[in-house]
């Protein structure tokens, strides 16, 4: 038992119901992954395990931050989740088609959540056991308004463990943004997305946590027949961030776009980990990953596409490209294919490069200042990924956050 990495200790935590009790037991048994666990080879949690953080237990007032402005900008209904706890006020006047329930009281939903949750992931156990806040959202029909989930929190001695299960009924459609902007010690959201037949979800996840925050999110997705998920993560904030998503395609004709951009500077560590299970044939998945790293930042992309024996006619694509702006920045990209079927179209690739000196010279020779020229080339590097996002309000958010990141290093593509 990795006793050293037991933070936080849940032995005295009172937990109700069999699902959360099982999660608590599993957490007490396994804790954080040890140094030899392959899927955590590039992202070490030693510092996190040694840190003194207490699971949050109450709402506290926080500063509004950019999340609400983003929600307003896209005309979305905002649900605020503060220290991992759902703000009850934001569950009032939900858009048509949305029904909210309390996950604390719903054993069936907890079961369903655990079935979706990334297996063997520390946050699946820890956050299910602690469950600072638990929300079930049922979605039916075409939701007329976008949904924004805003994760906040101001206390660095706390860890936040919200658990959110979103279930889309057959043919339901929704546009959603997750916005993580907390300044807690550990932000550990556990999220489940369950899409029934022909349901469609467009979503972005923006990770812009405080620079001292560790962000470990675990997301589980289930796609039924002809369900469609178009997801895009942008990881910018945090001291260390791992965004892990597991998708299971369980019905023919399911389509999963799961792309990500990570932007790192200083000593930031960004990890994008995905597992895509093609359990059945005739499904498509596509992952476009772009990373930009400056200073001594480190980036990790681990993407596994697993094609089951009978999953014929699978189309699974993954492409990771990283741009290093500094010689001390580092990237580990590991796209993986595990194919047991024989009639599939799968491809993967990974590249790492620097800004092209000739392109930079061409731009500066036109009078464009070097910082702007660099920003233009970085934006160009990211733009095809962002352009693939079909919903304008979502691609606009991605572009804004990326542009802001560049402005913070004095890189701006549009003059001073």
């Amino acid at each position: 038992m990795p006793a050293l990495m037991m933070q936080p200790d849940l032995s005295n935590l009172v937990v109700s119901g069999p699902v959360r009790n099982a999660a608590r037991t599993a957490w007490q048994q396994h804790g954080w992954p040890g140094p030899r666990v392959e899927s955590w080879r590039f992202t070490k949690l030693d510092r996190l395990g040694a840190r003194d953080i207490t699971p949050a237990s109450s709402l506290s007032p926080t500063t509004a931050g950019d999340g609400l402005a983003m929600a307003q900008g896209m005309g979305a209904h905002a649900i605020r989740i503060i220290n991992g706890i759902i703000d009850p006020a934001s569950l009032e006047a939900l858009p048509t088609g949305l029904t909210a329930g309390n996950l604390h009281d719903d054993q069936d939903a907890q079961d369903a959540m655990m079935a979706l949750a990334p297996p063997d992931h520390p946050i699946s156990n820890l956050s299910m056991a602690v469950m600072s806040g638990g929300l079930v959202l049922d979605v039916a029909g075409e939701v007329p308004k976008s949904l924004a989930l805003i994760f906040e929190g101001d206390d660095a001695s706390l860890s936040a463990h919200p658990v959110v299960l979103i279930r889309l009924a057959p043919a339901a459609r929704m546009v959603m943004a997750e916005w993580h902007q907390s300044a807690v010690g550990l932000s550990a959201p556990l999220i489940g997305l369950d899409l029934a037949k022909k349901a469609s979800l467009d979503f972005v996840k923006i990770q812009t946590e405080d620079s001292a925050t560790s962000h470990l999110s675990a997301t589980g997705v289930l796609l039924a027949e002809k369900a469609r998920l178009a997801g895009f993560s942008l990881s910018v904030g945090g001291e260390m961030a791992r965004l892990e998503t597991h998708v299971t395609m369980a019905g023919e004709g399911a389509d999963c776009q799961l792309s990500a951009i990570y932007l790192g500077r200083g000593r930031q560590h960004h990890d994008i980990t995905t597992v895509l299970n093609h359990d059945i044939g005739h499904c498509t998945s596509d992952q476009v990953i772009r990373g930009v790293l400056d200073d001594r930042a480190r980036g990790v992309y681990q993407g596994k596409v697993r094609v089951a024996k009978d999953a014929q006619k699978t189309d699974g694509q993954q492409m990771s490209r990283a741009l290093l702006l500094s010689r001390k920045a580092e990237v580990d990209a590991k796209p993986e294919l595990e194919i047991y079927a024989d009639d599939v179209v799968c491809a993967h690739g990974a590249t790492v490069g620097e800004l092209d000196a000739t392109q930079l010279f061409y731009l500066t020779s036109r009078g464009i200042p070097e910082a702007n020229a660099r920003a233009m080339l970085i934006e160009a590097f990211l733009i095809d990924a962002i352009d693939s996002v079909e919903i304008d309000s979502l691609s606009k958010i991605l572009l804004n956050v990326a542009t802001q990141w560049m402005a913070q290093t004095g890189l701006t593509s549009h003059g001073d």
Partner: protein
Amino acid sequence: MTALLEVRNLYASVGDKPILKGINLSLNAGEVHAIMGPNGSGKSTMSYVLAGRDGYEITGGDVLINGDSVLELSPDERARAGMFLAFQYPVELPGVGGMSFLRAAVNARRLEAGENEVDQLAFVKMVRAKAGELGISDDMLKRAVNVGFSGGEKKRYEILQMALLEPSIGILDETDSGLDVDALKIVSDGVNMLRAPERTMLVITHYQRLLNHIVPDHVHILADGKIRKSGGKELALEVEESGYAGIDDAA
């Protein structure tokens, strides 16, 4: 009279290899100078060094705009001081939209001059008009910079940029290569329109043909990193007829 562009005994090397070996040139406002010379003689290197590209060691001499040395200036500073280089091989910029590229370049210059940024609509109109004169389609303007352009289209796009930036010093590195006869005429007309009393141009070419369209005031022969011979426009004809053999002894 101070020359608009003066190259004074310029030496430059790449690594240990000397490429420019004491170049002297003096370009006054209103003049067009042509440079001819064999492959590998250092013409493009000279144009890059003038524009301030990294990777060359300046081992001697100076480059002055209006009497001020620009060797310490970065490429963008030199550009905003009035220098423009039309590349022999224009660079593709996938993902960089043509219009925003042109606007960024023009705005950089305007900000330097203490002017406001261009009005977007007026700018698009102006670009379309100038592009039309150079036979550049709207479709090309919408694409990423130089991406999917033919060789000749790239050259026209260089001249479009020059027309928009209105530099005081235009350096054209083999703008004629890759152009068909009609395009050569269009591009030359574009360059001739930019001839002005306050401007100078340095036209690098292998062919007398271009100089029929853009008639130079002076012609220089660059060979092995040095100007070996200078003369009037008839020097180009001489080269066309008898090649570069024998140029050396004339130096």
